[in-house]
């Protein structure tokens, strides 16, 4: 017969280690290792053929060239705006799915939000191009309706980029919002009405405080997706969309300046971390609470 305690423990550890191996391998090989490599790359400068010295040159270049940090700030600002716009659009949709629609209807509505994501982001964005380009559906419609005399080019504008970003982020905001709204007890809303509150007060005092972890989770996901997006700004905003990921791409692929690209990558990582931390501070929440609670 087995002894109950010690051998059981001894058996658990290797099994646990085995179970964790894929996770650690994934983390180590795909996240830690490349980042260590990129960090090393970003902190050196080439002084001759195959001759490198440790240097802060790459980072200094970023601050010396207005084009770089302007693009950087513009990307950050537009991502914040896109995140906020997504939240404003997603909240009523999530509300309908979680609180108003019943049973099958709510499942169908969620499915309707999900279906576009069965198609790749590139194809979805190309769909927008078909709609918005000068020879596209919407400009032709505007002419037919007599609103514009000639077909207008609706692509390659900041607002077009914004539309694409919000559209591509929608689902990632709606899902955490639905789960946090579903857990809101309807009687709390009724109690607030009963005590004399109007719709806006209920939203401000009851719904948003309750859904705060879901709102924050959705905002973090959407913000990171938007900030790191490449396809949507490039396709909808054109070659000069002024998105920071495009600068990184240019450094790595076009200029073959890996050191500069690595430095840009780290700056973007720092930026997204800083803004997420700032957002959590402002709303008084902790990252673990936000991501742990569904």
């Amino acid at each position, binding site marked *: 017969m087995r002894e109950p305690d010690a051998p059981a423990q001894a058996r658990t550890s290797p099994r646990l280690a085995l179970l964790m191996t894929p996770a650690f391998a994934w983390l180590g090989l795909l996240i830690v290792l490349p980042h260590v490599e990129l960090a090393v790359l970003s902190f050196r400068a080439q002084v001759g053929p195959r001759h490198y010295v440790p240097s802060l040159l790459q980072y200094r270049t970023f601050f010396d060239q207005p084009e770089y940090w302007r693009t950087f700030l513009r990307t950050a600002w537009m991502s914040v705006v896109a995140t906020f716009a997504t939240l404003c659009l997603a909240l009523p949709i999530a509300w309908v799915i979680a609180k108003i629609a019943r049973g099958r209807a709510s499942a169908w509505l969620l499915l309707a939000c999900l279906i576009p994501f069965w198609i790749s982001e590139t194809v979805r964005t190309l769909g927008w191009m078909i709609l918005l380009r000068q020879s596209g559906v919407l400009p032709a419609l505007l002419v037919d309706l007599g609103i514009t005399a000639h077909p207008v080019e609706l692509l390659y504008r900041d607002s077009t980029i914004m539309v694409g970003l919000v559209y591509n982020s929608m689902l990632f905001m709606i899902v955490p919002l639905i789960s946090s709204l579903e857990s809101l007890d309807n009687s709390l809303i*009724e*109690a*607030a*009405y009963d*005590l*004399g509150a109007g719709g806006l*007060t209920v939203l401000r005092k*009851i719904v948003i405080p309750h859904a705060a972890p879901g709102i924050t989770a959705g905002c973090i996901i959407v913000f990171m997706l938007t900030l790191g997006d490449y396809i949507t700004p490039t396709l909808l905003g054109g070659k000069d969309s002024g998105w920071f990921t495009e600068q990184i791409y240019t450094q790595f692929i076009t200029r073959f300046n890996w050191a500069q690209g690595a430095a840009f990558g780290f700056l973007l990582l720092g930026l997204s971390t800083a803004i997420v931390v700032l957002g959590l501070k402002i709303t008084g929440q902790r990252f673990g609470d936000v991501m742990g609670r569904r």
Partner: protein
Amino acid sequence: MSQPDLAAEAVVKRFGDHVAVDSISFAVERGSFFSILGPSGCGKTTLLRMIAGFLAPDGGDIVIGGKSMRGVAPNRRPVNMVFQQLALFPMMSVGENVEFGLARRGIGRAERRNKAGGMLERVGLAGAAGKRVDELSGGQRQRVAIARSLVLEPTLLLLDEPLGALDLKLREHMKIELKQLQAEFGTTFVYITHDQSEALVLSDRVGVMNRGRFEQLGTPQDLYYRPATAFVAGFVGDSNRVAGRAAGIDADTVLVETGDGWSVHARRHGPVAVGDPVEAFIRPEAATIGRQPDQLPQDQPAHEGLVESLLFDGAKSAVLLRETRSRREFRVALPQTGQFADLRPGERILFSFDPTRAACFATASGEHA
């Protein structure tokens, strides 16, 4: 009767084909404690939600404090509600919960804090304003929910089975506390419950509701001693139910034959004709047991049974018998003296009851309670 605080006038609510509230009318006197008692699904919650304004009646009108509430939103009614699960706001402190309604009326922070503090003190929660809701016990939460509503000085306080979530001991305690609070504040309470004991203990008047209608509206004593329908007799208090046929009627006394060899006498309530299917309701405390015929009241017909089991429950102890011929169960309350504490199962015993305290109703077709 002074001007009623609440009057329902032929209120109707339908859900599809189902009539949840079927033309109900009643009035609640100012400062009284009114209960709506009924089994689950009888329409009492629907009625309460119409009074609160969360549902609109399909017909009739609800008048609160002399004003028709037609088209008045819940946040504009002089009515507050204590919800079944209390619905305290978990994202706010106890004090903020109580201040919530005051803030909605645009009352300044200092006055709000003052009023909320005073109200918490009156419900015995002085100094709890800074606590979180989940730090309170069930009974304390109950009091916060009541304070949150009463601080607004509503014409009417609605309570939707607020004791349902509490355990038995606390429920008994809160029952008394609720009655005291109501007496102290003098606010009109409308209380919904399926628990007849809560309704009897707390209320000045009770409406017994069944299938969307009031079966009877009266004082707790009326319901208990003078039930208007078989449903009320069966639902309010404990009763032995003896179903059979009316074999004979002498003045107001009906002879009920069970068809399996037993017959009892009971007082007629409502129209009963010879040959009708009837039901007699006999309260356990209206019956007496005895080992010898001379231990029973001499003017009552005696019955014979075998002791099935003793149901000891302190002051509410009873003995469960089986009538000898029909083998039907019959429950008799034991006297407080402990006189029959030595009864043994299987023992032969005599019992009797006063026919005038037994209620006989004609069985309505399809009536089940």
